[in-house]
């Protein structure tokens, strides 16, 4: 059982504090330079393959978690750069590249044991895969950059790894490629070529690969994508790659954050004030500054 006492004591009750994961996306939403930092507990506490859930310290790296899950043929729908932690990836809240099959990161977090701004430990959500008991704090926490509470221990939904997958690419109209497939995991478009990842049962993947070959697409490796993300505006920036259906653009240059309507921002600020009236948790960060 992961003990949150030390994490809670590190966070304390009054001074400004930030939480550091792998530091792979440290600049997202601002910077906490000069603010005292703490780290979340590390380790996989309980993996229940038959339940398709895993309990893990938020400071555990995604790589370490994935290795444990893979032993039983499972995975979680969370992506991140090498050295990313579970907690960090959840707080950044970006959707996995294979969203078409894995679903969204907001639906992964079942329970979060957190330390609030008042220094008290509280639990959001519950351990089961289906739960509408009370308010959905877990979905609110995902993507909150640690500005509402600091997450120490989480229970995540896992999924079976696909039996087979294939990346295919070619200068084919995206609509045509998608029309030949059932729920492709990923569809990318760089302005000329469409690249897709199909996955599932072996024979079905072979069938879909065959259809794509008929269209003129060929096998390829997993594409390397530019780092930054942006919301799709209907125009692909130079060097940009669109995740079709996900509304996400990968691009080499850092984009401006999307505009947030005044009323929505005010509601967001009320939310932050409600959880952290003195703004001591990750004080330099603001989810409203994050681009998609």
């Amino acid at each position, binding site marked *: 059982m992961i003990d949150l006492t030390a994490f809670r004591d590190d966070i304390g009750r009054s001074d400004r504090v930030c939480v550091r994961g792998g530091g792979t996306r440290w600049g997202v939403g601002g910077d906490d330079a000069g603010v005292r930092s703490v780290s979340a507990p590390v380790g996989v506490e309980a993996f*229940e*393959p*038959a*339940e*398709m859930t895993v309990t893990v310290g938020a400071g555990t790296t995604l790589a370490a978690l994935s290795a444990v899950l893979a032993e039983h*043929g*499972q995975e979680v729908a969370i992506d991140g750069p090498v050295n990313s932690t579970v907690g960090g990836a959840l707080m950044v809240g970006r959707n996995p590249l294979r969203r078409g099959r894995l*679903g969204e990161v*907001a*639906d992964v977090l079942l329970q979060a044991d957190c330390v*609030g701004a008042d220094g*008290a430990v*509280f*639990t959001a959500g*519950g*351990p*089961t*895969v*289906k*739960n*509408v*008991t*009370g*308010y*959905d*704090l877990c*979905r*609110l926490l*995902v*993507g909150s950059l640690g500005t509402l*509470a600091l997450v120490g221990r989480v229970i995540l939904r896992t*999924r*079976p790894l696909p039996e087979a997958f294939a990346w295919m690419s070619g200068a084919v109209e995206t609509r045509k490629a998608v029309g030949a497939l*059932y*729920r492709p995991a990923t569809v990318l478009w760089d302005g000329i070529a469409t690249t897709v990842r199909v996955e*599932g*049962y*072996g*024979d*079905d993947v072979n069938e*879909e690969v065959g259809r794509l070959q008929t269209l003129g697409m060929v096998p390829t490796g997993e594409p390397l994508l530019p780092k930054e993300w942006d*919301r*799709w505006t209907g125009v692909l920036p130079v060097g940009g790659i669109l995740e079709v*259906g*996900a*509304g*996400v653009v990968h691009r080499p240059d850092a984009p401006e954050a*999307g505009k*947030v309507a005044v*009323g*929505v921002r005010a*509601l*967001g600020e*009320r*939310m*932050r004030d*409600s*959880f952290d009236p003195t703004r001591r948790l990750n004080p330099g960060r603001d*989810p409203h500054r994050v*681009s998609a």
Partner: protein
Amino acid sequence: MSVPFTRSLLGRIRGDDPLVRDLKAVLGRGRVEIGPAALNLYSHDASVTRGGHAGIVCFPENTAEVSACVATTALHGRPFVPRGAGTGLSGGAVPCDEPVMVVTTRMDTIHEVDVERRLAWVGPGVVNLDLSLHLEGTGLHFAPDPSSQQACTIGGNVANNSGGPHCLLYGVTSAHVLAVEVVLPDGEVVVIGAEEGRATGYDLRGAFVGGEGTLGIATKICVRLTEDPPEVATLLLDFERVQGAADTVTAVIADGMVPAALEIMDQRVVEAVEPFAGAGYPTDAAAVLIVELDGMPAGIAAAIARIETIGMAKGARTVRVAATEDERARIWKGRKSAFGAIAVIKPDYYLNDTVIPRTRLAEVLTRVYEVIEERDLIVMNVFHAGDGNLHPLILYDGREPGVMERVLEAGEEIVRISVEAGGVLSGEHGIGLEKKRFMSLQFSPADLEAQERLRRAFDVDGLANPAKVLPGGASCGHVTTLGQAPEGTWV
């Protein structure tokens, strides 16, 4: 307990109520009701909760009217309760202490369907099934399919984060709501979420879905549309012991499969629905298990073989794969109409909704049957087994002296057993009024405080559907949460 309808608890004469006058100025006379028929009709939902009292019933037809209605109500410092079709099972739409009922059923327009981007903007009053019927021929559908789908509204689905058999694979309502236009409790209109990708800022959309009408009113909803699967197979397995069906479900998940649906019905349910559905359910079986698989053909064929093997090993007598679309439809007709058929057994029922770890299904089910037997009651079990979502339905005759106490006691015991097994209070019906008092079984005071913080950010003055979800705070007048069963509800 009854309150004369012409005089409110505060002693106002309704016709002279300045709020009624102001609401009529906003909506017009015909869409503000204070007559006894409307007040009675809108004082309850499909739950067993009784004793609610509506104060004023409003029927806005667009966002501006909802906003004006809510702002006017807020100006008078009075509470309001949003309401869709009233099919909720936890008392979430039952009015406490004469609030303004804001009924959204007239906002039933499907505003836009974007087939290429796979999304639709709909009014909150659109009936769940009507959207999927509207989409026929596009190759897309709206995935959340609560058993009440022919009556419940999408606004209600958003408020309750509704489930349904197929959310095992496709996820509950929250996974299918991209954005929501919301009238906040002070009347302000905001759009939270985004048509594509995550919205910049906090996931307020995620926080709002499942808010049970306590965070504002959804006036337009952007829903994700799901691709129809190229192939669907529906299997029916039957067992001599209920535990065999439960063990099969546990083993299927443990084997790394996530079928589209995994539903169990016990013998009492099967006996009640078979004459009506004509699905060919074996009525001598202790339980049947419905398995639905969808996707590409080879994967389905392989999964059928695996499920047959697992089922036989766990004691299945037969495994039948529906051969025709008609056969498939009948199997589902029986499942989805289970609750219409129960009246033949006892006049009243109390329906519970808890979730347990799916590895512990057989053991918890055994406990549920024991709890019922010890109290000389009758239970029917029909439930979403794949995600551990139990729906024990306790049958009784309210005229029998002392029976209510035993039903209540059994209901509480089932909630307690579920939580002790590592489960939660509700999987899809919500907390409303019915389960408020159980919240502290699952949550500590600090947990509940965090939930209260979320609520307060949306509803600063506490006017949106007060006295629901969180324990403590306002009580709900003279409401009782267990009484005469309503007719025609679903799970």
